[in-house]
């Protein structure tokens, strides 16, 4: 008999219904990841005890850890299901939806809040105008290398899931947003919105809600220097506050 993979999945059929657990057993294949296990369950939605059930819902897109859609809690640790290989995981593999975002169904959560916050801090380079703005300025190589690291953010939400300050009691926007503010403030054209961004981060849910637990940088799957960004943007808001107080 071929090897099997045992899974324990926290399920929830609708945003308002209460969660429950179900166990599954699927055949193991070579190089299998957690997504492949979920595909097997979808093909044959029967629990370990032989009870017919609804297929487990999940999200995924790129399958190469660059989109963040399949982020979930796997054996107690938040990460992407596509890069979680079965051979590296203890069984039964426990799958839970992220806890800091509203559950849509099973392992699918609504991460809209992160995108709303990106809008709030104007995380873009303004290039639209009534006239041609010409080619963008050249960025020196050492700076570009840092930009690249920061630009790897895929808005997966791991940094927020592990942040003790990101919860329903505070409006903290979290490391992801602060790091994107650093990225776009860095950019020669993006810097034209620097003050706007810093003022948003000096408001409700801004950078001062950070408690420096530094879990974000530990779990970031793209190894983005998030705590470095928090320090840098901390310096930028300090200087901005001094400017607001003494030069305006």
């Amino acid at each position, binding site marked *: 008999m071929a090897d099997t993979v045992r899974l324990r999945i926290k399920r929830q059929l609708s945003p308002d219904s209460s969660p429950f657990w179900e166990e599954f057993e699927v055949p193991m294949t070579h190089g299998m990841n957690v997504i492949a296990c979920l595909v097997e369950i979808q093909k044959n939605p029967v629990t370990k005890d032989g009870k017919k059930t609804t297929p487990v819902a999940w999200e995924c897109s790129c399958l190469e850890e660059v989109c963040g859609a399949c982020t979930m809690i796997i054996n107690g640790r938040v990460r992407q299901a596509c890069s979680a290989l079965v051979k590296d995981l203890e069984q039964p593999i426990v799958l839970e939806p992220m806890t800091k975002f509203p559950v849509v169904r099973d392992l699918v959560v609504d991460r809209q809040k992160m995108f709303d916050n990106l809008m709030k801090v104007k995380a873009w380079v303004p290039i639209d105008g009534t006239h041609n703005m010409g080619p963008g300025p050249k960025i020196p190589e050492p700076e570009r290398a840092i930009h690249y690291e920061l630009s790897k953010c895929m808005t997966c939400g791991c940094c927020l899931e592990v942040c003790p300050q990101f919860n329903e009691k505070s409006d903290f926007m979290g490391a992801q947003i602060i790091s994107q503010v650093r990225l776009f403030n860095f950019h020669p054209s993006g810097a034209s919105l620097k003050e706007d961004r810093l003022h948003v981060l000096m408001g409700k849910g801004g950078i001062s809600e950070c408690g420096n637990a530094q879990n974000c940088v530990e779990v970031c799957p793209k190894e983005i220097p998030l705590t470095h960004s928090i*320090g840098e943007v901390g310096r930028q808001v300090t200087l901005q506050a001094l400017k607001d107080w003494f030069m305006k």
Partner: protein
Amino acid sequence: MTEVAVDNSFYYRRIHSLLGIFPIGLFILEHFFTNSFAVHGAAVYNGKIEFFKELPYLFAIELLFIFLPLAIHGLYGLYIVYTGEPNNLQYGYFRNWMYLIQRVTGVILLFFIGWHVYVTRVSALLYGTEVSYQYMAQMFRNPVVFWWMVIGIISAAFHFANGIWSFCIVWGITTGPRAQKWMGKATIVLFLVLAFVGIRALLAFHI
């Protein structure tokens, strides 16, 4: 364009951070140092108490540089504790434990300093209690008070030292990981030194 609600939490939080160093941190250094005179015995220690009693504008100094900063830092700190949801059992990283201990010591200190100020200062104002080496030694003879003092001293040393570490990130002094790591080590040394100085001063009353 929607109106952005006026929110001063950034400034409150920065004031909280600043007060922790100036004047509270400086006061802790002075306080640990001055109480260390106890190692030279009752006469020297009581002499220092007399010196402080005779400071001009004493009440204003105590109010503006000790009492009010402590009250603001402590009460806003409680609010900060409330906004956090620790997850140390799931994510047991070193700095995450420091985050939790910073909050636990903060809450302990709110009670400890409240009691400490009452028995050594407020009771003198209200009931004319004579605060002296003998009074302190008498109090520390009770083992409950003695161990409560040990907890308070270690909590204060930790909270101040670790607070310097986060202060340096918050204000953008140590922005990079190397600087933060170095500062982490330096503040652990400061914690150990302060704890040593504080406990030694406490033990000086026990001989």
